């Protein structure tokens, strides 16, 4: 029994549609009538989970794995594959529907940086509050206080309410507290996606040390290089099922391969963003449609020659009149590394005034200059400097090699091509 985490046949099902009820339940109950509210009542009461039907969906299905003491294990999967649900069960936030988990030792989980930070409290006060929520004793926080502050590099701002912190400072403080937890098992969600690069490296370094010191880490991330860097083992989740378990490198290769196999869903040049699967659960839909054309106005089918033009239409809805909005189209490589971002706010002649209702924006890219290979197109909407919607992997782009430089050779190395002129001096 050297396993520190034993997961057996773990399943979790959710009722579709009620996972996130709207704020105005009263009106909803009136609309749906008494029957609906009775169903909700049964669910709230705890009896509803046993009834079965087409309206249920398995967020996790029959997942089993073991983690040994001192192992650092990655959990990889697309959005909606069940990663967060798995972490929530392991962190005791929600109960499984079936199966069981055995955990030995003190477990700390970090599903969000700075959980429970209150904007009106100072950095100092939030360190104590957050530490207590993550399971630290008061004496423990006191003894590590200076270390935490030094790690966060926030000595000067300790007595400032965190609402005046920049988002980077906020993340630093949150991670600093978490990094000084002393658990035997640490469960981390993709908290490193935020924060600046140098701090991300510092956190990864800290977590690496953590792994070397005999502690067990479960690490969920989209950051494939980080998984490769940190984890020895990894599991891959696809639509709630565990489809691969093994070394981190082979798991990543499997995952990248699995994602490419799904390609058939990208046949159309019109993408329904409203119901897209690539929307992280924290976002509500604002983006409606993505329509892609090649330069000559033909529907884009997924392939484009290097140097060819592209036209992208993004349709989204503004629920109120807003002047400060930014539509973004991001191109990433297969590993999620951002290659290029197109933004409506980069348009020098923009003067769209306050807009409301359904909008359609068109982005012309006169030349696609990425080196031949596979790319993914993501799209996002930012209102008043806050990202309100994002759809990952909305479409794929395969750039076909052409003789861009006119030399009879196809450029293939690096990320992009660029006009260049050589001469002998």
């Amino acid at each position: 029994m050297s396993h520190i985490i034993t997961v057996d046949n773990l399943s979790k099902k959710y009722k579709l549609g009620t996972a996130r009820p709207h704020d105005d339940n009263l009106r909803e109950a009136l609309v749906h009538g008494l029957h609906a509210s009775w169903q909700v009542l049964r669910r709230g009461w705890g009896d509803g989970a046993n009834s079965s039907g087409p309206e249920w969906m398995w967020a996790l299905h029959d997942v089993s794995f073991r983690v040994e003491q001192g192992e650092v294990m990655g959990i990889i999967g697309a959005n909606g594959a069940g990663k967060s649900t798995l972490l929530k069960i392991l962190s005791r936030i929600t109960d499984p529907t079936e199966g069981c988990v055995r955990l030995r030792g003190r477990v700390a989980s970090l599903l969000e940086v700075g959980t429970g930070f209150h904007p009106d409290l100072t950095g100092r006060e939030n360190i104590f509050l957050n530490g207590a929520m993550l399971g630290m004793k008061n004496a423990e926080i006191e003894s590590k206080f200076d270390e935490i502050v030094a790690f966060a590099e926030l000595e000067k701002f300790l007595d400032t309410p965190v609402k005046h912190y920049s988002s980077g400072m906020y993340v630093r403080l949150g991670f600093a507290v978490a990094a000084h937890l002393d658990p035997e098992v640490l469960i981390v969600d993709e908290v490193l996606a935020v924060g600046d690069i140098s701090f991300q490296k510092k956190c990864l370094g800290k977590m690496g040390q953590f792994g070397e010191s005999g502690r067990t880490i479960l690490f969920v991330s989209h950051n494939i290089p980080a998984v490769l860097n940190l984890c020895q083992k990894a599991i891959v989740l696809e639509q709630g099922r565990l489809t691969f378990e093994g070394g981190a490198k082979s798991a990543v290769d499997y995952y990248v391969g699995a994602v490419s196999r799904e390609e058939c869903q990208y046949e159309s040049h019109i993408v329904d963003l409203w119901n897209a699967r690539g929307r992280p659960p924290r976002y509500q839909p604002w983006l409606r449609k993505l329509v892609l054309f090649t330069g000559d106005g033909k529907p884009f089918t997924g392939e484009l020659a290097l140097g060819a033009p592209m036209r992208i239409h993004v349709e989204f809805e503004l629920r109120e009149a807003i002047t400060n909005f930014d539509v973004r189209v991001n191109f990433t490589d297969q590993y999620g590394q951002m290659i290029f971002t197109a933004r409506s706010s980069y348009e020098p002649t923009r003067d769209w005034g306050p807009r409301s209702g359904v909008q359609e924006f068109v982005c012309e890219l006169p030349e696609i200059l990425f080196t031949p290979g596979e790319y993914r197109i993501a799209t996002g909407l930012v209102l008043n400097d806050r990202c309100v919607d994002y759809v990952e992997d909305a479409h794929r782009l395969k750039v076909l090699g052409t003789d861009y430089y006119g030399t009879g050779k196809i450029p293939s190395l690096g990320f992009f091509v660029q006009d260049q002129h050589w001469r002998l001096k």
Partner: protein
Amino acid sequence: MDTVDTIDINPARELVLKPHAGWQPVNWQEIWQGRELFTFLVWRDIKIRYKQTVLGGLWAIFQPLLAMLIFTAVFGRLAGIQTDGPPYPLFAYSGLVLWTFFANSVSMSSNSLVGNQVLVSKVYFPRVFIPLASIGALLLDFFIGLLLMFGLMIYYRWPPSAGCIWMPFYILGTLLASSGLGLILSALNVSFRDVKYAVPFFIQMGLFLSPVIYPLSHVPARFQLFLGLNPMSGMIAGFRQSVFGGKADWGFVGASFAMSAVLFVAGLFIFRRMERHFADII
């Protein structure tokens, strides 16, 4: 971080996570272990409650004090309600200070889970801490209000009776009743935001169904039993008798206290039963 070679894992500390159904016992051990966090949450609620207000903690006494002035004008002067004891303002204030604590406790705690969604969906600790901490934080306001009551007693030259030693008993009863209701309503509020709209209305009605602004003796005997089912009637009536003197009706007070205790225990179990779905539906 210091490098630790190995960590001894105590196999006895195995935690099993599996589906739960039906009624569950309350995990007292876990609650006791989390007591430090509970005090932090109470302290947090106190710290942030009056942030960015001009009057700050003075609101703790303004609420019962202003209500007292209005009720004195309307019921004491216009309606001429007799109190069989202290002057009407003192009488009204003593009821209002306890009632305000109860009313604020129920309304704050019933919205506490929904107002702390992040805590429910992103971190685990005994969830009962959330509604109970919001009530714990209001105790401070209550004690400030109580100080003013003693100030008013000095002003009206009405010395406290020897029955004063029973005051904690009535405060405890109020605490149990508001915690019980707070636990049930906060849990229901997770599924039904209707609670948010219903609670203020029922609290407003409750003020008139409890002997806050009129003495119990004004209620016809045949309705008194019915009134006794309202835990706050016994607590308010008893609280007043203990402070101002007079004979306590132990049957009436006992019934209210029993009702409070039942509410509290029921609250704990109902909350426990519903809490496992909080993170899924909040």
